[in-house]
Each structure stands twice: as C-alpha cells, then as structure tokens.
C-alpha cells in the first residue's frame, strides 16, 4: 500500500499539484485519471521520487520515502518497477539486455539465473524469440510489453505505469491493460496506472483517483464512476455519445 499525504508541486510560479492525498491499495490497479496537463505524470514522478515535491510525503507501506535516508531510498527503489509512456527502452541494448538491466545492477544473480528470469518475464508478457531484437526493430505494442517485462523482472512490490496504452490501437491497448491487471493480481503488487483512456478506466479501474487542475476531485471504483455527481468528472467521462447514452440508461 502506498499513502500520499498533501503533495504539492509548482514549476516557477505555476502550481501543478495543489495538495493531493490518498491511498493506493495493494493487489489492485489504482488509476490516476484526468485530462491532459492536469499533473498526472508530475504526481507519478513525485511518488517515485523523480521529482521532489514542494510539500507532502509519500509512504511505501509505512516507510516515509520522501524523508528516507539514502540507504532506505535505495531499498525502496529496488521494490519499484516502472513502465514509461514510450517504453523508455535503452536504444543501445537489445530486448534481453534491456529486461536484464535491473537484475545486472540491483542483484547478484548468476548469468544463468538472470537469463532464466528474463525469459520467464518475456514469456509472461507474451513475447518469445525476440531476445536479440533491438528496440528500433519492434512495434509500439511490443515495446510496451518489453517495458512491462523490465518493470517486473526484479519482482517489484510497486508497479507504476504512465499512460501504458498511449499510441497503441484499441485492441492492443486492452491487451496491455489486461496484462497489467493480471500481473497485479498474480504477484499481489500495488499498481498505479496513469491514464486518460476511458476504456482503461472502465476496464481496469479498481480504484480511481480523478485529478482536475492539480486537485483530487473524486475517488472511487469504476462501478461508482458514473454516479459520482461531480460535474468535472462527468464532463471528462461522458465526452462521447456512446458514453452519454450509457449514463442516460443508468
């Protein structure tokens, strides 16, 4: 479980996050949703420590990450896996080397053990026989899968995904979403997914946090989403006709 407390962040004089608090639950896919530019990625980066928040703190299972010393920070980092928007695979390394990289730097496994673990993870995300391919030679969907494999290779307790299906076709998006949800349940991970994709929100939103202009306006599950009574959320959810007709029926 991850707990965030009163996180705020401004860039020069522009406030991006205005005191966000909340809990992200273990064994569930926790979604942070909202339209583009509301600060979802900034919040995610504050949580994993890529951006230092101006105020507030982040707790990873009661350990205060924001104020942790170097040693505890690196301990917590070992338990974090992250999938980036474009996959963020290292272009100079092939698929196998990319997935193995966290093991190379964070563990003392033998080469044989590493290969075995890498192949297990690649198989888990549905990729086999592409070990030697370079990132430039594989499709966007495959890059995301490799990114997921790299994120889970060191058995993380926390998995973060920034827009896991941006730039993918709807079908591949759903497969990636389902993969993330399955892995979350299978390995009992605290997963945090940032998205503005309504299919994902309805499909895998076990716990949802809605951001609007740097504030958390609503939180709940995908079942409660359409009865939220929050105008900004309704505007975000019911942007197209199909969605609106769903609401009218409900």
């Amino acid at each position: 479980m991850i707990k965030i407390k009163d996180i705020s962040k401004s860039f020069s004089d522009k406030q991006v996050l205005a005191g966000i608090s909340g809990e992200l639950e273990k064994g569930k896919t926790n979604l942070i949703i909202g339209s583009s530019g509301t600060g979802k990625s900034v919040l995610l980066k504050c949580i994993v420590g890529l951006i230092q928040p101006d105020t507030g703190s982040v707790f990873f299972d009661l350990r205060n990450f924001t104020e942790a010393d170097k040693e505890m920070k690196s301990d917590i980092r070992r338990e974090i896996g992250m999938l980036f928007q474009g996959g963020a695979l290292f272009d100079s390394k092939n698929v196998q080397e990319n997935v193995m990289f966290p093991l190379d730097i964070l563990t003392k496994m033998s080469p044989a053990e590493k290969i075995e673990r890498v192949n297990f993870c690649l198989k888990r995300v549905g990729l086999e026989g592409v070990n030697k391919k370079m990132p430039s030679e594989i499709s966007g969907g495959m890059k995301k899968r490799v990114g997921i494999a790299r994120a889970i290779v060191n058995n993380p307790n926390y998995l973060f995904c920034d827009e896991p299906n941006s730039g993918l076709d709807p079908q591949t998006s759903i497969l990636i979403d389902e993969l993330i949800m399955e892995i979350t349940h299978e390995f009992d991970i605290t997963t945090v997914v940032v998205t503005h994709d309504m299919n994902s929100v309805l499909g895998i939103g076990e716990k949802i946090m809605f951001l609007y202009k740097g504030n958390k306006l609503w939180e709940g599950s995908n079942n409660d989403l359409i009865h939220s009574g929050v105008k900004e959320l309704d505007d975000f959810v019911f942007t197209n006709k199909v969605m609106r007709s769903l609401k009218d029926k409900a």
Partner: protein
Amino acid sequence: MLVSTFMGAVTTLQTGANLVSPFVPRFIISNVVREMTILELAPTIMAVIYAGKVGSSMAGGLGTMRITEQIDALEVMGINAASYLVLPKIVASILMYPLLVIVAAVCALMGGYLVGTLTGLLTPTEYVYGIRYAFNPYFITFALIKTFVFAFLISTISSFKGYYTQGGALEVGIASTQAVTSSIIAILLADYFLAYLLI
C-alpha cells in the same frame, strides 16, 4: 585525416609563397609549417571538427535519452544517470582526442612534405631539416595540454546541453546545434587563454 593532410599542404604552399626573399633559407618553410601545425592548426582545427561530429552526436544521444524517458528509467532504478552516462563520454574523449590530434599532426606534416617536394618548393632534405630545426619539446607538451582541455570542454559542454534537454525531437536538434556552437566558442576562448598563460 584528409582535412589535416590538406591543412599541411596548404600551409606549406602559402608559407612558401610568402617567403620569397633569397636571404631566407628554404628550410624555414617547413619549420613554420611544423610550428603552426603542432601549436595551433592540429589541436584547434581538429577540435572544431570534433565538436561538430562527436559533440553534436553526444548531445543528440543524451537529448534523445532524456525526452524518451530513458534517463528517468535509470534514475528510478537508483542509478545516478549523470555519472553513469556522462562520465564515460568525458573520459573517452580525453583519452581519444589527443591521439586523434597526433595522427592529424603527422598527416599534416606529411601533406606538407608531399606538396612541398612535388612542387619543387624545397628538397626533401631541406623539408626534414626544417622540421627538426630548433625543435622545442615544450611545444609538444603545450599542444597536448591544449588537446586535453579542448576534449574536456567539448565533451562536458555537449553532454550538459544534451542531458538537460526539455521538450521533444525539435529541442534535441536545438540542443545538438547549441552543443556545437557553444563548444567552438569555448575552444576559441580557451585557445586564446592557454596561449596567453603558457607561452
């Protein structure tokens, strides 16, 4: 290599054209070529070329890693991305660039020899005598100091520009152009100050 060979050839011809007085011995031509090549032309001209080729690709590479979040990916794993990515580039430059300049200087001197003797400006014996005449080993040291400084400047400036890229592909292009211009300006300034301080 091509550039440096022509550099030597042209310096030889021009020095030859300017030294028309019969009172000046011919071997002075190659003597001047040596001084100019080792002290100024090889380290500085090569630095400009190096900045254009290696500096821009360093900035472009790091800039791409920044905007595609590869640098963030390293940081999340707890790696200090700056030292992990940048330090090896600086070390490699400081080791390789002096070698490059030595090769360039040798090429330039050979280019001068070829052109000087083929055009009958001076005989092979005169050329070689000029190269060895009044040789001051300190100039080699000075040239090497220059190459270390230039290599350090080019690699740090270019890495800095690339590492702190923000935005998208357009900004990566801008970063790599800026890396080249800033490096060249730094080289020219450093060239002046080193000459002022060390000679």
